[in-house]
């Protein structure tokens, strides 16, 4: 491939797999695998995903300089693969998940503790070729902490608020956190196992429920992966309606987050007002697409229903309302010193770590990483719409609030353009059937960051294997770093400014 991509040139040393779209996938030798890991560790490309199959492991890679995606696959004939996490820490949790699910062994791995398997499943290695009996697991060994005057605070899995479950183990010296260690996997639902052999329709519903707050992003990523695999042309109007749903989802979630972050600094007024705006977005979404969160609104081939007749009016009113009500809230945030005192310089996340982890979304953009999947690799209709991707460098809670504020403004601008330019025509195309095994991959910008979906369809058109990768995989570990040296009382603030998904991560 002569597209100026060093990544594709490296993959060309392997054997390209036919029927994998839109980006190439290559089977690689253990030597080439090590070379690719070296590229990851050296920053030549970043990790997009890392997932398993009973007899192989796959690395999704992103080369920023050329804007290219590639997938490398290593067959594990003896049930082993050279550890990626050893050289490239962002892969560690994904690698531990592969071990738990497939029973493959990462040789030389730096961390052998199970991750998703808590010793509660009726079987071990649920996605392996042959199921093994449940393995007895010793109590989870948290990392040792040594030093004088340290105490530990265990939190969760059941938290105090209306949030998802997970365990946080804080080690503090007085008020200052010296280490946070996360223990996740509590909401592991076995989604990848349910996806095996599922019809495309059922799989779309499942992937749409990997993380409910990002149901549109997941629906879009799954649909685009299926469409890439089957080479289905989606009608133009469907592209635009999908973008409309995606921007409404971003708007609703960002509003909720801005309010919730301020509320965690005990500034409830912002929560009340942002909550009203969020509710109005959900109501307008229900008018337009019949569901407040727009679940199952995007289907492979297009969208499940056209924009309702009253939809445009509801959206125009929503935009007007936002333009009236949102600016005073920005002023309120900006001019409340007691609030700024809590958010400025709190939860600083080193930009070098953000780059290393390929951390996307608000967290990435608040720390200087401009990545936005709508631009690059990009997908329609964003190439025909005007919008800015805000980027800041302070990388603290305040910067993450401001990125959200700016993105709310950009989403309003996008919705305006979509309403003005929405093309007429059909909203759904039939998926083309070929009777062959086909593979597809898609990368989509959700409100939280980039969602990756990789899948293989069998000859009958059913899902043989599908792996949805939440942006949280590369964000959760950074929260551990961000909280260091902050006081315990600022953890809710830091955590909310990240707003990682437990369900999306645990699968």
């Amino acid at each position: 491939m002569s597209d100026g991509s060093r990544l594709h040139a490296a993959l060309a040393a392997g054997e390209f797999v036919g029927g994998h779209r839109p980006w190439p996938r290559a089977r690689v030798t253990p030597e080439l695998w090590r070379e690719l890991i070296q590229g990851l560790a050296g920053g030549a490309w970043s990790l997009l995903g890392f997932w398993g199959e009973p007899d192989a492991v796959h690395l999704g890679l992103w080369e920023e300089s050329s804007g290219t995606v590639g997938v490398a696959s290593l067959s594990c004939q003896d049930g082993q693969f050279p550890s990626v996490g050893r050289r490239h820490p962002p892969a560690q949790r994904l690698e531990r998940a592969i071990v738990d699910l497939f029973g493959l062994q990462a040789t030389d791995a730096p961390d052998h503790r199970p991750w998703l398997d808590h010793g509660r499943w009726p079987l071990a290695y649920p996605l392996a070729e042959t199921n093994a009996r449940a393995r007895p697991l010793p109590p989870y060994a948290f990392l040792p902490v040594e030093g004088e005057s340290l105490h530990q605070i265990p939190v969760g899995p059941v938290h105090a608020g209306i949030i998802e479950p997970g365990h946080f183990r804080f080690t503090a010296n007085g008020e200052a956190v010296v280490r946070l260690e996360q223990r996740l996997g509590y909401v592991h639902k076995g989604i990848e196992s349910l996806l095996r052999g599922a019809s495309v329709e059922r799989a779309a519903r499942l992937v749409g429920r990997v993380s409910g707050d990002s149901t549109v992003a997941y629906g879009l990523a799954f649909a685009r992966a299926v469409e890439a695999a089957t080479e289905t042309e989606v009608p133009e109007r469907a592209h635009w309606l999908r973008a409309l749903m995606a921007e409404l989802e971003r708007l609703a979630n960002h509003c909720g987050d801005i309010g919730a972050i301020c509320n965690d600094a005990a500034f409830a007024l912002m929560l009340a007002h942002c909550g009203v705006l969020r509710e109005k977005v959900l109501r307008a979404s229900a008018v337009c697409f019949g569901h407040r969160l727009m679940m199952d609104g995007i289907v492979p081939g297009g969208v499940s229903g056209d924009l309702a007749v009253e939809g445009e009016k509801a959206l125009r009113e929503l935009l007007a309302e936002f333009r009236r009500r949102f600016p005073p809230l920005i002023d309120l945030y900006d001019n409340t010193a007691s609030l700024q005192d809590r958010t400025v310089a709190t939860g600083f996340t080193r930009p070098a770590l953000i780059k290393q982890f390929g951390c996307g979304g608000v967290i990435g953009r608040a720390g200087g990483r401009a990545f936005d999947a709508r631009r690059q690799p990009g997908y329609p209709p964003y190439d025909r719409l005007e919008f800015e991707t805000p980027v800041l460098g302070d990388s603290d809670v305040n910067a993450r609030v401001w990125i959200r504020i700016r993105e709310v403004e950009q989403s309003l601008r996008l919705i305006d353009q979509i309403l003005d330019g929405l093309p007429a025509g059909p909203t759904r195309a039939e998926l083309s059937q070929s009777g062959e095994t086909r593979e597809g991959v898609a990368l989509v910008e959700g409100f939280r960051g980039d969602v990756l979906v990789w899948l293989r369809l069998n000859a009958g058109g059913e899902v043989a294997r599908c792996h949805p990768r939440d942006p949280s995989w590369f964000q959760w570990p950074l929260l551990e770093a961000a909280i260091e040296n902050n006081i315990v009382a600022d953890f809710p603030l830091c955590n909310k400014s990240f707003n990682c998904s437990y369900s999306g991560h645990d699968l």
Partner: protein
Amino acid sequence: MRKLLLQSLLQVPLTVPAPAPSEAALAELASKVDRAARRRLGRSLSIREVDAGSCNGCELEIHALNNAFYDLERFGFHFVASPRHADVLLVTGPVTANMREGLERTYQATPDPKWVVAVGDCGRDGGVFAGSYACVGGVSAVIPVDLHIAGCPPDPLRLLQGLLALLQTA
């Protein structure tokens, strides 16, 4: 800030009128809620929300109950941080194997009398996740459930109708 507060004072409240309690919920509750327990608790109930494996969609709508439109607290409901302070457990999700013990222990930590409300299609029978090795499948497979509120996710009005039915039987 003063201007914003003043405007809010002069505005008509956004809060929607109380919906009628759901008939189906009343029927489900009729045989289950103990009269003496209801007298003791009166019309004020503390809710502890427990996510037992949901996709977080139900949590978003439960959150919305607190916004100015639904204003759950006007009915005497409020969310509490500990099961020890709770009268009602509001449970979501298909109950993952990894959360089973967490749910059981939360239930045990809740003092009697108590009610359990299973929220969402997952909470009823596992929903789209039913049949997975990692899900127990339905809240009632783990702890006794007094009321189911269906939906994927149920919208705030539906949640409100179910919870009001709980009060109505009191």
